[in-house]
């Protein structure tokens, strides 16, 4: 035998990439798939809202006020100002998805950045960051959001920012914990031995291995962002009339709960479905990606 004995004689077994593996597991979870379908439906509705909506969501038809569902061309009825419920709900999906993307985007960006730094460096940096996180977490969550909106002024954009900011601490905690676990791995030590810089280790080596818990949290966070924005709009701190935002729709029609139930109920159901979709998918992802997180 000579030095080339093994050259080219070994074959890498044909196995799947980690992503494909996860997709197969996800497909087997009925609840997660249900969640995914709901979410996809809402995303499609949001993207194609102008094509799908039969009418202008803010156009009023005073004559047709409080028309019940399934009795006229207004399939899901009209609200107290005679606006088409279906169109308003469809445009509401667009707003809710935007809220989710922006709020979660803000929370993810800062949460990951601060969490990685806190977990990777440890020591004093970590201690200071964690005490700040403690302080933020000590406020009741919704109160924190309200305070931020109150400072920034009530508007839909500010509500998104406020929700994003108040979600940051959760991501810091999750990212920090997984970074701390990952940074002890041999592969980090190995890459350090090659001369890799701290930046490279933090964001190119460690972070990709922490994506599992982050994506679970982001999915769940999406749902709660939609819920919170509905809450803020309900309180008058988020979207302003006549925006077809679900929370605002509920708030402005709460007095008709007995007389025209659909005006209050339909946006409520839409909110519930969207949040449910994200929670189902989030729980499914958690089971697959990070069984330790199950509680």
């Amino acid at each position, binding site marked *: *035998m000579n030095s080339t*004995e*093994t050259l080219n*004689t*070994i*074959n890498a*077994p044909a196995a799947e990439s980690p992503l494909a593996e996860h997709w*197969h597991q996800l497909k087997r979870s009925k609840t997660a798939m249900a969640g995914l379908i709901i979410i996809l439906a809402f995303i499609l509705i949001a993207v194609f809202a102008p094509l799908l909506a039969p009418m202008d969501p803010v156009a009023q038809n005073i004559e047709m006020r409080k028309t019940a569902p399934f009795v006229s061309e207004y399939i899901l009825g009209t609200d107290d100002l005679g606006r088409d419920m279906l169109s308003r709900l469809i445009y509401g999906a667009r707003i809710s998805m935007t809220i989710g993307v922006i709020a979660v985007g803000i929370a993810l960006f800062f949460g990951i950045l601060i969490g990685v730094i806190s977990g990777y460096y440890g020591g004093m940096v970590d201690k200071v960051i964690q005490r700040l996180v403690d302080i933020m977490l000590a406020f009741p969550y919704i109160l924190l959001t309200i305070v931020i909106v109150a400072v920034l002024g009530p508007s839909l954009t500010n509500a998104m920012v406020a929700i994003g900011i108040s979600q940051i601490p959760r991501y810091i905690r999750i990212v920090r914990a997984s970074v701390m676990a990952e940074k002890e791995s041999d592969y980090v030590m190995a890459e350090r031995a090659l001369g890799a810089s701290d930046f490279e280790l933090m964001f190119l080596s460690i972070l990709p291995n922490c994506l599992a818990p982050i994506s679970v949290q982001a999915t769940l966070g999406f749902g709660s962002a939609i819920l919170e924005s509905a809450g803020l709009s309900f309180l008058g701190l988020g979207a302003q009339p006549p925006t077809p935002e679900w929370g605002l729709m509920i708030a402005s029609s709460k007095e008709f709960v007995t007389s025209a139930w659909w005006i209050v109920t339909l946006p409520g159901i839409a909110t519930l479905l969207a949040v449910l979709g994200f929670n189902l998918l989030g729980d499914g992802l958690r089971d697959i990606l990070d069984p330790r997180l199950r509680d």
Partner: protein
Amino acid sequence: MSDDTLLTMENVNVHFHTRRGVVKAVRDLSLHIKKGETLALVGESGCGKSVTAHTINQLIPMPPGVIESGSVIFRDRDLLKLPEKEIRKLRGTQISMIFQEPMTSLNPVFKIGEQLADVFLTHQKMTKKEAHAKAVELLDLVKIPSPEKRAHDYPHQLSGGMRQRVMIAMALASPEPGLMIADEPTTALDVTIQAQILDLLTDLKDKVDMSILLITHDMGVVAETADRVVVMYAGRKVEEGTVYQIFDNPSHPYTLGLLNSLPSNEKYADHSRLEAIPGNVPDLLTLGDGCPFANRCSWADEACEKSFPGITELDEGHSIWCHKSEEVKNRSVR
């Protein structure tokens, strides 16, 4: 088969149904264990040695595992046909098992003396005090220093070697120990501790009249403790014989290759290159019906790719399963 046989496995096939396909983990395996002997099941990762052990005490996770066919006769009963309740009764009494990592098999919240005494209390009628005394006696038997004191320790307070001794004591706590399955019992231990545990196992086997099924990848451990050896490769038995037959006259190309690739082999005293077996263990998913070693074997030809060979008896009790036994024999003078 004579009367001194404790366990006989006949034509056992174990499959695992995974999403990517069927893994034939153990194929057409037959073996027997005599009373009082140590049978070593040796092979590299994926050869099916642990699956074989788990077939005996019915610890194969089902699904995805399926025991497709075969029988495992232990003391005149076919273990594969026994109801779960009967098997559970056998496990821990007549068939015991020690693992590579003893910490995982001991309950961390109970003192080791209590855990040992529990074994007595479940299977025998005696008072708590008697059971405790018995437990201490056993700890002494497995040569744990100051057993009376140690009985009050929790598992985490013991070293790895001590925990393995406790596991062995647990196996001995049964009234009629028959077979101890030792699955890589010393792999996690330091070499000086390993030597002590192997000595202990050999001593005890004679004292309490039990058989040991030793599962290991380490040819050194085999040479030190086994009476007979079964060499497995990719789910198949490829060679079987007494420990002397296997080490003095290894006859299957795989066994030869395995012994030749050991750096401790005397022939490398001059620091020459090791005679490694080229290539890798085949993927069990795609393995055909031929000899699994064919793709790494320098003697292999088309016949080897096509069918698994029948038995070639070389000597009393020494057999190989190889199409090329004649060629191998003529070239492999050690």
